[in-house]
């Protein structure tokens, strides 16, 4: 089993969810993160005071998936999250040693 970790734009979340769903991957866990990469960040101004915000809002999606389906998941996310502009994000795949489902107490991998 592998863990696919994708950092994407917020506004692409719905697209990514749909893309995964269509390919039959419903399980996922997401959370709100802030990220910076090669992008410049933005400058905000409060009452005349400039505050540099270089960490921009992103969504992190985590999908645990069997090894043989990793490519399909990566592909689906890659397409659905793409806009072509700097800041589209990254996908990382990490090895998983073991996995369990709590409800059934079964070991999945």
């Amino acid at each position, binding site marked *: 089993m592998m863990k696919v970790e994708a950092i994407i734009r917020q*506004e692409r979340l*719905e697209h990514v969810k749909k893309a995964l769903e269509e390919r039959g991957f419903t399980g996922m866990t997401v959370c709100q993160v*802030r990220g910076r990469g090669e992008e410049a960040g*933005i*400058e*905000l*101004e*409060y009452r005349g005071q400039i505050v540099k915000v270089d960490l921009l*809002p992103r969504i992190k999606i985590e999908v645990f998936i069997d090894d043989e389906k990793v490519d399909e998941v990566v592909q689906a996310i890659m397409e659905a999250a793409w806009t072509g502009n700097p800041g589209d994000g990254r996908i990382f795949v990490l090895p998983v040693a073991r996995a369990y489902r709590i409800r059934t107490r079964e070991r999945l991998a």
Partner: protein
Amino acid sequence: MDPAATAWVLAATSLVVLMVFGVALFYGGLVRRKNVVNMIALSLAAMSVVSVEWAVMGFSLAFAPSVLGGLVGGLDYALLRGVGLEPFPGTGVPSALYVAFQLAFAAVTLAILTSPFAERASLTGFTVFALLWAIIVYQPVAHWVWGGGWLDSMVSSLTGASPLDFAGGLVVHAASGFSALAIALVIGPRRGLDGRGFPPHSIPMTLLGAGLLWFGWFGFNAGSALAADGVAGSALLSTHLAAASGALAWGLVSWLRGRPSSVGMASGALAGLVAITPAAGYVEPWASIPIGVLAAVASYYALAWRLRSGIDESLDAWAVHGVAGVAGSLITGVFASEALAGQPGLLWGGVPTIMAQLISTVVVVVYAFAASYLLAKAVEAVVGLRVREEEEYVGLDVSQHGEEAYAWTE
């Protein structure tokens, strides 16, 4: 000068100004987190612009003696000339206070009108639109209904009855609501709204806004008596009862189809408040209960239709203010009490009253819709109404104001 009336209208004017913040929070809670600052700022900007315009000429256009055959008022009070300590003609309150009281109504109207601009309007485009709308739609309509303009005399001569609009069911709510619909058609839907709605980012903010509106509305309606008397007291009681019955009615209707949402209950209260606005000082208090119920049900179905239609009149100024404003206007013609309104409603056989309501409502709604549509088209063509696509995605708070509503770190 009537000192007690002045004491109450001082308080009432303050209450009506607070309503602008009530609308801003009500709407602000309904949008996405990335647009809440902009949503509130639109109301603030509109109030600021119209206030200065009101002093320059707006009050005069609405309330000075008619020119152009009753289309607008003249420039007699332009730059606040002659506005001072002495009572405004026909009232017991100082002119300066009367100007402020009426100004607050114009400000609330513009705040309501921010609905179709939600989450996509350019600050420049909106501000230009708001300024022109005040001049082209609000002030003429206020003149027609309240300032002695052509509508009043036309309707009176046609039907033998005066059109009744105690506190602005037509001038404020129907006009802004139907204008909102026209604007929504021009400006187009928000991006990414494919079937699904966007969940409100803070319902407590919306409910706080509703609370401030309920509170401020007492100044709006009971203040419109321009006196501290029985009519004001009766208007206040009617206002409260219409809000309560509207909240209940919406809650019950939506309960039948699922669960009663708090935003729905608040919308029902607003619909009740809107519908009692034209009626408050003209009907007996008991009538406010059927008025509140009818208005809430009408708004509920109007909103359901709006959603199915795909028109992104985003925060439902049309369904709540427009539809309940029209409903209230017509029902005023039904329930008007002769003792209070000077002419009986349909319930007591007063056909002229309901005819007067019907005609004046149609005129105001058609004019507001058409003029707003053309004005929106014009502003779109000349200065533009919407932000660029990326600006809409990143959110208007950052793109229009350089601000983030909530810091993400501690």
